[in-house]
């Protein structure tokens, strides 16, 4: 198989609920072996898209192909070859860590011998071997998440779908999880990730689409998107809330673009330090200043006029 083939493709994909259109005609293609992201705020239509791809939600319109098949007609065949990590962990709380993996493997039609070996291998991968025969309930959030991911790998999926994989985890747990996902990618597993964390998208995704209000508003690699929609650097000028408006006119021509947030101004410029000096020369006195590189957060702000996490 060619590495650039589309393993998943959506064309004009629509998801409609009773009186609400969650996904409003999106086009996207995921290539085999890449890590593909859906970045957007809550309610952007990311999860609805993921559920359609995992054959757990019939599409309302448009075309969708997963592993070359139509989810409406080949649901079980597709699900046999993908792994699903839902937004909310739904581990089997009445079973132990090991049993969770074994029982789940049986749902995929694996033999008892196969699931026994698979459980050992996956507990090793998820660093849960020392918890093998413990109940699931008392595990930490990070451990539960790793077990959910391990469980989704029990059928050696070609594609792993992760819906908000690190939401609610502490920084350490997040980094461990990212490391695990990176390992999977190196093994050739195609990853599809939804997130509203731009750092996660930058860390993990080769390519991503930015979603807002059920539509795709931009597509590319994180670096491409930043180059296309933001400048190299951003100067942040923090003010007491409300005071920022007075400074807008003084700094407007110092940057390619100025964004006004409730407590600060963002100046998009190629040289943040130079802009800092010039703003100071014009008598602008913020509480604090910060020069940083542009991120996907800035891309999102540019595209939608809103911040990602609010």
């Amino acid at each position, binding site marked *: 198989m060619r590495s650039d083939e589309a393993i998943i493709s959506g064309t004009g994909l629509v998801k409609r609920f009773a009186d609400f259109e969650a996904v409003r005609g999106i086009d996207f293609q995921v290539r085999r072996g890449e890590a593909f992201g859906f970045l957007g705020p809550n309610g952007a239509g990311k999860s609805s898209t993921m559920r359609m791809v995992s054959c*757990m939600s019939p599409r309302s319109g448009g075309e969708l192909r997963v592993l070359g098949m139509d989810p409406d007609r*080949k649901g079980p065949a597709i699900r*046999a070859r993908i792994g699903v990590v*839902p937004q909310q962990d*739904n581990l089997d709380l009445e079973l132990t860590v090991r049993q969770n993996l074994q029982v789940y493997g049986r*749902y*995929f*039609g694996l033999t008892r011998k196969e699931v026994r070996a698979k459980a050992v291998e996956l507990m090793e991968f998820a660093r849960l071997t020392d918890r093998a025969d413990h109940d699931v309930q008392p595990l930490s959030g990070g451990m539960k998440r790793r077990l959910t991911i391990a469980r989704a790998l029990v059928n050696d999926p070609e594609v792993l779908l992760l819906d908000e994989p690190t939401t609610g985890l502490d920084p350490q747990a997040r980094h461990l999880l990212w490391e695990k996902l990176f390992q999977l990618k190196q093994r050739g597993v195609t990853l599809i990730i939804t997130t509203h964390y731009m750092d996660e998208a930058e860390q993990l995704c080769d390519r991503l689409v930015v979603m807002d209000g059920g539509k795709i508003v931009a597509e590319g690699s994180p670096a491409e998107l930043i180059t296309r929609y933001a400048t190299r650097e951003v100067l942040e000028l923090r003010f007491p809330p409300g005071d920022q408006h007075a400074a807008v006119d003084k700094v407007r021509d110092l940057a390619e673009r100025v964004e006004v947030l409730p407590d600060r101004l963002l100046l998009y410029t190629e040289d943040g330090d130079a802009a800092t000096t010039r703003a100071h020369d014009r008598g602008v006195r913020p509480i604090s200043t910060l020069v940083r590189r542009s991120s996907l957060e800035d891309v999102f702000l540019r595209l939608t006029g809103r911040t990602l996490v609010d």
Partner: protein
Amino acid sequence: MLSIVDNPRRTAVLQRVLPSGSYVGLARRLVERSALLYARAWVVLLSGVFEPLFYVLAFKIGFGALVPAVTGPGGLRLEYAAYVAPALLVASAMNGAVSETMSMFYKLRFDGLYDSVLATPLGTYDVAIGELSWTVLRSGLYAVAFFAVMAVLGLVTTPWALLLVPVALVVSMAFAAVGMVCATLLRSSAQFEYIHLLVVPMFLFSGTFYSIDVYPLPLRWVAELSPLYHGVELARGFSTGVLGTAMLGHAAYLVALTAVGLYGTSKRIGRLLLN
């Protein structure tokens, strides 16, 4: 088979009743899960064996002493314990099936069990059939225990009585199927009361303790709607060895309920989780 495929209208009906992907034949894997759980809690299973013992003892030793011989199927005179025991056997299958399927409410609404299962190749019919099968298996175990208690107390007098166990399985199947539909319709655990409101009168008024012939005609029709009534008639017939063609009707009623219940359960799970 071919004619079904060739006829577009029939294909459409089939597609409606059994949408593609809703059954892949892995239902038994869900039964394995239940068996694994109960292997950890086998004492719970054991407790279900004591229930019939208490029931039969109460009627044999206590209540039976107050009631003279009663008239059973075909005008047969028999002691009250022998009259009521087969009915209690199927009533216990009903109770077991209802309480087991009510746990589906939690698995569906809170535990996310079926969400995780439906992300695997299993379909909604696999879930419905898997849960139904486990309930029936468990009921079968209790029915065997109940039957053993009856035998020990001298209440088994004909080889036909061996069919009490399969009758219990069919009753359990029908109640499990309908119970699952109810479990998917509940919105809170407080609504379990509605189920009690149905089950308790069914237990008392379905000919379990006396023949429904005592009711005036319209009431008798109502009693005949009760699935338990049909189970009781089957059980009492086999227990006394008095058979009749009406038994085919009783069995057909229970099987039909099972089919409708499975269809309804599969549809409801699909509507709730695959939307």
